[in-house]
């Protein structure tokens, strides 16, 4: 312990506490969240093992039974796997936020002179970085089991970029779930019923045309299908401008709606 006299002397020095800086604060939070991801590698492994199993399962188990005209199933499947991976991965944004609320870390943040938006902006940014890693890994796994895009490298990269942009928009959606749930178990429980129909009632694994008519309308226009179709076109067979624009519209729309609501909810959360 320092003697009181020494600390009194130290107190005389000026303290340079500064006012909020939204960009710097968001970077600091992102730094902290990236460290969290690195310190829990099992979470990262878990979130990549599941899509790898899906790739193997759909390629070698179900793949033989699913016939998509005019394309090898692996080339049809991979865009769906990419999108499915980031959809399920975005769960961690909500669960992580709920955990921070639960432990009281958010209370500390809210008592500091930092930008109100930083906790959310920083976390969604860190989750985006994680997804860059996961998507790159999935691309390698896909290549190993025979995925061969027939479009230009630039077009394929644009497709993967679209996947990442979609993952970022979903982080904002599930940030709301986390802030609403306030604990990680509830956040998970709420998230699954949102994700399952989006992922499975979509064009991710099978053509929408094979579904019953009443489901097709939903399946065709919901964001997962729209993004998967665009990525599929960008990687195999060629995409129309309209497909890509529809995907971008969904992504921009989700962020435009979910981000302000989440920031507002964060300010108010007790």
């Amino acid at each position: 312990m320092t003697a009181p006299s020494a600390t009194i002397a130290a107190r005389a020095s000026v303290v340079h506490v500064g006012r909020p800086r939204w960009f710097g604060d968001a970077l600091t939070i992102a730094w902290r969240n990236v460290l969290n991801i690195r310190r829990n590698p099992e979470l990262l492994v878990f979130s990549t093992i599941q899509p790898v199993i899906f790739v193997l399962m759909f390629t070698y188990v179900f793949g033989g039974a699913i016939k998509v005209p005019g394309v090898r199933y692996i080339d049809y499947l991979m865009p769906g796997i990419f999108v499915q991976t980031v959809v399920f991965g975005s769960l961690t944004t909500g669960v992580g936020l709920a955990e921070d609320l639960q432990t009281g870390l958010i209370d500390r943040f809210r008592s500091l002179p930092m930008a109100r938006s930083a906790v959310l902006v920083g976390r969604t940014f860190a989750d985006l970085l994680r997804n860059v890693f996961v998507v790159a890994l999935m691309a390698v796994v896909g290549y190993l089991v025979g995925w061969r895009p027939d479009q230009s490298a630039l077009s394929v990269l644009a497709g993967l970029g679209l996947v990442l942009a979609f993952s970022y928009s979903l982080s904002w959606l599930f940030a709301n779930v986390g802030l609403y749930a306030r604990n990680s178990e509830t956040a998970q429980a709420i998230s699954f019923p949102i994700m399952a129909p989006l992922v499975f009632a979509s064009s991710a694994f099978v053509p929408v045309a094979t579904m019953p008519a009443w489901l097709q309308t939903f399946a065709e226009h919901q964001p997962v299908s729209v993004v998967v179709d665009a990525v599929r076109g960008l990687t195999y067979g060629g995409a129309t401008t309209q497909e890509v624009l529809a995907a971008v519209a969904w992504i921009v729309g989700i962020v435009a709606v979910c981000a302000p609501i989440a920031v507002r909810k964060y300010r108010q959360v007790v």
Partner: protein
Amino acid sequence: MPAPAILAEDLVKTFGDVEALKGVSFGAPTGTVLGLLGPNGAGKTTALRILTTLLRPDRGRAEVLGVDVTVDPVGTRMSIGLAGQNAAVDANLSGRENLRLVGRLTHLPSAEIKRRSDALLEQFDLTRAENRLVRTYSGGMRRRIDLAAALVHRPPVLFLDEPTTGLDPRSRTDLWGTIEDLVADGTTVLLTTQYLEEADRLADRIVVIDHGAVIAEGTATELKGRLGNTVIEVGFGDAAGVARATEQLARLGAISTDGHQLRLSVTNGAAAMLAAVRALDAADLQPLTLALREPTLDDVFLSLTGHAAEEPTPSEDDDASPTGTRRGRRTKTGMAST
């Protein structure tokens, strides 16, 4: 008298139909420690959350260093530190990284963050553990790093929400020493606690809160003074003994009972002790224990809340009812805090 560093004026806060605070007022002059004492659900944490800008009051005024916290929340956050009962640090970061996190979020220059971190890790005896992840820390170490994190930016006003709840006695005593050092340093501290001993040891003034209202206020000595100078404690093997002894001893002073124990508050300890012994002996009562001691804040709490036991039994639902201001459970809670 200068403006108090911490001021709460008639704070009211309602959650749904539960009145967490029903017009609470208190103040702490610069450089002093104010203890908010009360059982769980009394409203202490709500008051602290309002003063630290985490919660807006429905009514009333909350000031830190003369500034209304609802008018200038950012300015308030620049001059306060908060350490919570849940040790709100990032368990997946090391001790040093946690301090760096707070240093960056308070926008200190990096050289200053380094200097402050070195000094705090040293002061809190965490230098050897500075690079270990906090999730590997013991409970006491977690509280220390939590407190250190609240001090990185040298806040002149510090809020401690039940800083030692759940700690073992040794860690608690250590943390008390640390808090005393901070106070010697001129920091103004608001401390919430359910431990009477903690308030007694650390606080210059104590505000006793229950069911969202202040039920007593004063220095530890003043609060104890309400009870007379001395307490005679008589223990029996059963409640019947307590009841019979109460009859015999009631003329000697104020009596509060609790299970198999009876506490008699008196002004002249030695004489009263003799009288008590004679009275018990004459009634052929054989106590298991008999002791003369200085009053503690436990006695204060029991006597402040002891009326409750004599009133019609309220429902067991502690937190939901906005009406009960005098409740039987307080006696039990007061005991649980010892």
